[in-house]
C-alpha cells in the first residue's frame, strides 16, 4: 500500500519539473524527491504516530493541485485586522488579485516564493527537516508557489501580515501543499497569521500538506498565529518548524477548528541563549474529527525558557491527541521549561490520548509538565442554573471559560472574536 500511495505523488513531482515555471528550487525538489521515496509513511507501529493513522490519507487517490482556480473576492473572509497585509493562495497557488500588500516598511521582502530572489530564500528547506519527515519531504519535493517574508534587522512591522491558504476543492481529491517561509532579522518585530480555510460549501475531501519554516534573528520578536479551519472533510498534515536566535522571543498560537483528520506539528529549537518561546494551542473537535497536536521543544543551548499550554475541547465522538516533547540537551543548563495540557471532554464517547515526554540531559534545569482531563464541573453548572442561566447555556459558558484561557491571550481582536463566536454558537 505504501509504495502505491507514493506513486501518484512521484508522478506529480516529475510532471511539475516539466512545467516551465519550475526552474527555481530544482535541486531542493530533487533531493526531497529522493528523501520522500525513501522515507516510510508512518504506521501504527511508528512511535510518534501511535494514535493517528494516516491510512485514510494514503487510501485516497489524491491529485496535486495544478493551478490556481478563479475565486470571487467576495468569498474571502474578512482580514485579521482592518489594516492587515494579506497574501492569498488558492489550493496552494498564489492569487495576486486576492492579495493586498498595503503599507509595509520599504525594506521588507514579501511575496510569492516562486518569484523570490535567490538570496531571499536561502533558508528555505534548511529549517524544516525533509530528511526525517516524510510529509515535509513530499511538500518540499512539490515546492512551487508559497509565501515568504523577510523582515530586516531593526524593522518593526506595525500591522499583522496574513497568509491565507484557501482550499477550493471542487469535485476532485486535491492534494494542496502550502509552503511558508518567515525570516526575521535582529531586533525586528512582527505579527504573522497563517489561516487555512475551506471556501464555504466545499464538501469534497482534500489533503492539505503544509510546511512552515520560521527563523528568528537575535532579539527578534515574533507573534505567530495559525488558524486551522479546513472543511470537515479535509485531511490536514502540517509541520511548523522554528529556530530561535539569541534573546529572541517567539509566541505561537495554534487554533484548530476544522479538518476530519488533522496532524499539526510544531517544532521549536533554541539556537541562541536567553531566548523565550511560548507555544500555545487550542483544539475544538466535534463529530468524528480527529485532531492530533504534536510539539517538540528542543532546548539545545543554555538559559532559554519555554512555556507551553495546549487546551482541547472534545465533543461527540471526537478524538484528540496531544504529544508534547521537550528535550533539554546536556549543555542546556538553566533551562526553564513548562508544559501544560488540559482537555475538556464534553461527551462520554470523546477520547483523548495525551503524552508528555520530557528528555532531560542537563542537571541544573527547571522543567514541569502536567496534564488534566476532565468534564464540566456539575457544581459549576448547578451554580449557574441557580442564578437563572439555563443548563445548556451554562455548559456553553463553562466551555467558553475553559477555552478562554487561550483565547484571551490572542492579541488579534478579529481572531478572538471569531473564536468567541465559534464557542458561543457551535454545538461542541
Amino acid at each position: 500500500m505504501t509504495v502505491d500511495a507514493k506513486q501518484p505523488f512521484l508522478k506529480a513531482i516529475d510532471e511539475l519539473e516539466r512545467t516551465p515555471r519550475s526552474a527555481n528550487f530544482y535541486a531542493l525538489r530533487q533531493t526531497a524527491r529522493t528523501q520522500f521515496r525513501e522515507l516510510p509513511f508512518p504506521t501504527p507501529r511508528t512511535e510518534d504516530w501511535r494514535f493517528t493513522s494516516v491510512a485514510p490519507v494514503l487510501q485516497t487517490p489524491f491529485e496535486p493541485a495544478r493551478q490556481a482556480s478563479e475565486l470571487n473576492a467576495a468569498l474571502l473572509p474578512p482580514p485579521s485586522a482592518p489594516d492587515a497585509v494579506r497574501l492569498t493562495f488558492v489550493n496552494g497557488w498564489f492569487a495576486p488579485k486576492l492579495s493586498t500588500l498595503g503599507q509595509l516598511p520599504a525594506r521588507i521582502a514579501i511575496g510569492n516564493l516562486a518569484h523570490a530572489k535567490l538570496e531571499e530564500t536561502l533558508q528555505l528547506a534548511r529549517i524544516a527537516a525533509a530528511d526525517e519527515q516524510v510529509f515535509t519531504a513530499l511538500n518540499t519535493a512539490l515546492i512551487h508557489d508559497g509565501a515568504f517574508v523577510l523582515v530586516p534587522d531593526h524593522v518593526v512591522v506595525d500591522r499583522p501580515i496574513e497568509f491565507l491558504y484557501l482550499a477550493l476543492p471542487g469535485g476532485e481529491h486535491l492534494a494542496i501543499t502550502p509552503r511558508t517561509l518567515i525570516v526575521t532579522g535582529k531586533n525586528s518585530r512582527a505579527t504573522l497569521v497563517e489561516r487555512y480555510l475551506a471556501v464555504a460549501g466545499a464538501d469534497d475531501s482534500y489533503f492539505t500538506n503544509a510546511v512552515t519554516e520560521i527563523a528568528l534573528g537575535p532579539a527578534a520578536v515574533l507573534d505567530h498565529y495559525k488558524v486551522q479551519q479546513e472543511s470537515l472533510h479535509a485531511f490536514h498534515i502540517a509541520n511548523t518548524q522554528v529556530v530561535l536566535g539569541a534573546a529572541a522571543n517567539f509566541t505561537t498560537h495554534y487554533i484548530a477548528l476544522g479538518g476530519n483528520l488533522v496532524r499539526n506539528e510544531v517544532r521549536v529549537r533554541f539556537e541562541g541563549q536567553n531566548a523565550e518561546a511560548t507555544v500555545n494551542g487550542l483544539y475544538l473537535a466535534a463529530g468524528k474529527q480527529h485532531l492530533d497536536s504534536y510539539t517538540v521543544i528542543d532546548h539545545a543551548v543554555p538559559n532559554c525558557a519555554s512555556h507551553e499550554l495546549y487546551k482541547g475541547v472534545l465533543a461527540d465522538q471526537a478524538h484528540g491527541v496531544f504529544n508534547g516533547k521537550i528535550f533539554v540537551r546536556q549543555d542546556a543548563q538553566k533551562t526553564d521549561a513548562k508544559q501544560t495540557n488540559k482537555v475538556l471532554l464534553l461527551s462520554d464517547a470523546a477520547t483523548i490520548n495525551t503524552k508528555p515526554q520530557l528528555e532531560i540531559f542537563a542537571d541544573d534545569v527547571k522543567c514541569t509538565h502536567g496534564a488534566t482531563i476532565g468534564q464540566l464541573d456539575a457544581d459549576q453548572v448547578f451554580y449557574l442554573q441557580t442564578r437563572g442561566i439555563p443548563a445548556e447555556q451554562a455548559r456553553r459558558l463553562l466551555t467558553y471559560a475553559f477555552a478562554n484561557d487561550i483565547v484571551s491571550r490572542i492579541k488579534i481582536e478579529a481572531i478572538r472574536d471569531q473564536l468567541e463566536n465559534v464557542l458561543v454558537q457551535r454545538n461542541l
Partner: protein
Amino acid sequence: MLTISNLHAGVADKKILRGVNLQVNAGEVHAIMGPNGSGKSTLAGVLAGREAFEVTEGEVLYEGKNLLAMDPEERACEGLFLAFQYPVEIPGVTNNYFLRAALNSIRKHQGKPDLDAAEFLKLVKEKIKILHMPDDLLKRPVNEGFSGGEKKRNEIFQMAVLDPKLCVLDETDSGLDIDALRTVADGVNALRRPDRAMVVITHYQRLLQYIIPDRVHVLSGGRIAKSGGKELALELEAKGYDWVKETEPALAGA
C-alpha cells in the same frame, strides 16, 4: 409563599430529611438553626434543585406552584435565590459577564428586554456600594481567588442584583469578620420587603441580632424539632442543641 409539607429527601441510600414541615409567608424572615449535619444545606439544596438529592416523599409549594417539578434555572427565574454555604468558583467567567447573563435570563423569563452593558453597569454600581465591595471584583472571575468573606458578600451582591422573591441564605455569616457581618446584615436588611421572604440558615445568634427573624426553627435529625420566636435563638445559645433533642423525645427513634 413557601409551603414545605412532610419533605423526605436524601442521597442514594442515606435519608437526610425526614419529614420537614415549614410555612414561610411573604415579608417574613425565618431562621433555621441546628447541629452540623442535621440537613440544613440539604434542605436548601432541595429547594434550589440540586440533582444529587432525591425527594422520596412530601411536596413543596412555591407561590402555589409545585417547586420540585421545576428545573433549577426555572426556580431562579421564578424568584428563588440560594446564597451558597460554599460558593462555587468559576474561573474564566467574570462576575460581570456571569451576572448579566443571569439577569437577562431572568428578565427574558419575565418578558422584559435585555439590559445592555451600560444599563447593567449602572444597576450593578448601585448595588455594589450597598455591600462595600471593591469595583474590581466585578472584573474578576466568579469567586476565583476571593477570600471567604468576599465570596459570601458576593452572594448577597448577586442577590441584590437579581432581585429575588424568596431568598435562602445558607450560613452566609460564617467566615465573616465583625465588620463584614454588619455589612452583609445591612445588605440583607436593605432587601427586606413586604413581598419578599427570607430563610436564613445560621449557627450564630449574633447574625440574628442584626437580621431580626420572625420565626426561629431548629432542624435536628432531619426534622424541625422546635420552632419559636426570636428568643429561641438566645435560648439555644445558652443551652445547646442537646436541650432540643431532650425536649423532643419523639425524635429519638426517628
